[in-house]
């Protein structure tokens, strides 16, 4: 009855693969594509926050800090609600990390504030006794690259249709038009900070890395 199958080994092998993958396909693919969609109220990061994300990557925070809260009571007690995949939909790349020398940061915006981050980045062990995190003083003088961050926003809007507004266009003119908004965001952060150097830089129209990074950390909620 099935001898015709055995006479066509290539067809037989393909048919077996299809039958076996079918179960996997109907179980995995729908859940996967549903979970990967952005959450309903998810907003893409502002340009300042994107610049901060670049600082986060550049200074390799991911080597010691994860951004993924697993659904275990011990983790949600300490860090807040467990992470959903839809929350990372606009993160390219996501910064889950896999090493927790320091605590998870996925919702750090909920329980740390601008001035805490400022004091902590200058001297971590003074704020958290026993902390082995190094100080990141250079972030107070280095200038963050907000122009590239803007370019990133425009790129993900064009390529991945990330919902930035129609005013995000390529070209110098569009950037000059958007720049005051970034500086206003930076000023809001700098106003809550103590460091005079940072305030001065922001007043001059430059964004220190620490301001961008704090904007990014505050946006992690």
């Amino acid at each position, binding site marked *: 009855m099935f*001898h015709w199958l*055995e006479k066509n080994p290539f067809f037989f092998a393909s048919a077996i693969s299809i039958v076996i993958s079918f179960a996997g396909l109907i179980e995995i693919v729908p859940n996967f594509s549903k979970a990967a969609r952005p959450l309903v109220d998810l907003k893409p990061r502002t340009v300042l926050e994107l610049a901060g994300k670049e600082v986060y990557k550049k200074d390799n925070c991911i080597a010691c800090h994860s951004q993924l809260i697993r659904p275990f*009571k011990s983790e949600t*007690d300490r860090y*807040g609600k467990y992470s959903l995949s839809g929350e990372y939909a606009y993160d390219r790349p996501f910064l889950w990390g896999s090493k927790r020398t320091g605590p998870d940061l996925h919702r750090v915006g909920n*329980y740390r*504030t601008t*001035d805490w981050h400022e004091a902590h980045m200058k001297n971590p062990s003074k*704020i*958290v006794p026993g902390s082995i995190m190094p100080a990141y003083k250079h972030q107070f003088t280095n200038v963050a690259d907000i122009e590239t961050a803007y370019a990133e926003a425009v790129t993900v809007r064009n390529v991945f249709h990330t919902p930035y507004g129609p005013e995000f266009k390529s070209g110098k003119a569009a950037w000059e038009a958007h720049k005051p908004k970034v500086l206003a965001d930076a000023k809001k952060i700098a106003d809550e900070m103590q460091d005079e150097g940072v305030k001065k830089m922001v007043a001059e129209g430059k964004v220190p890395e620490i301001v961008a990074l704090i904007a990014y950390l505050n946006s992690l909620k």
Partner: protein
Amino acid sequence: MNSLMIKTLGFAALLILATIFVVTKLNIDIFADSVNALTIAGAIAVATITSAVAAKYINQMKTDTTSGKLAEENWDGIGEYENELPSGWAYTFLAVFMWSMWYGLAGYPIWAYSQIGEYNEEVLAYNAKFEETHKNASEETLKEMGESIFLVQCQQCHGATGDGLSGRAQDLTKHYSKEEVLNIIKNGQNALGAFPGGMPAGMASGADAEAIAAYVAGGFKGEKPAAFAACASCHGADGKGTPMVAPSIHGYDIHNVVSKGKKGKIGRMPAFGSMITPVQEKALTAYVQSLAK
């Protein structure tokens, strides 16, 4: 008795003797212990059965002839018979087929495992147990619990001892100083935004304000100054607060600060409302109030 049988028996005997030889060489007394004896019996059985099964198949290879109808196709001369499917296989296949239909149409879609579901059950069960265990927790237990919460959530700003890390955050080891009370009387207070309207500025002044400040900062000891009546209208005659009107001024009433956060002259304290349960808040209150003496 043919030669195959003799060879088989010889092979089994050889295996058994080799086993016993090795065991004796290792200085093991076979009959000293029932487990040893059973193990040897097992070894003898394995050797015998192995030999017998081998003999059966060797015999079959020597004497069997082929029969049945060959299928049309063959691979390099190797063909197969058109035999019926063995019934055991057929029934197993049917059973697997029926199970897969159930699993694909009902089992997986309806009763699939959910990690979040397990998490929710774990949290519900834990919270119920936690509430039950600490329904009538003693002051001592609450203080201990409060301390561990404090060390996880609060010490990053307030310091492990609650001293506020020299000005990073409120020094919880002291309650209001006299200057702070005077400042609040002079300027009013609505930092929490938790009470409608907040406290207006200038409720008392001069020597009255001084007397009130000394009384409140001194921990409500000694004679109550007459001017305290201005405070009592909202904070209550004993200073323990009135719901919806004014907070307690006895020690730190942390409920509003913890659930809403606070922007004060030092900086902004974030809200912890979603991370702390009512029992934990009670514990934290007990601990924080125990810090300020």
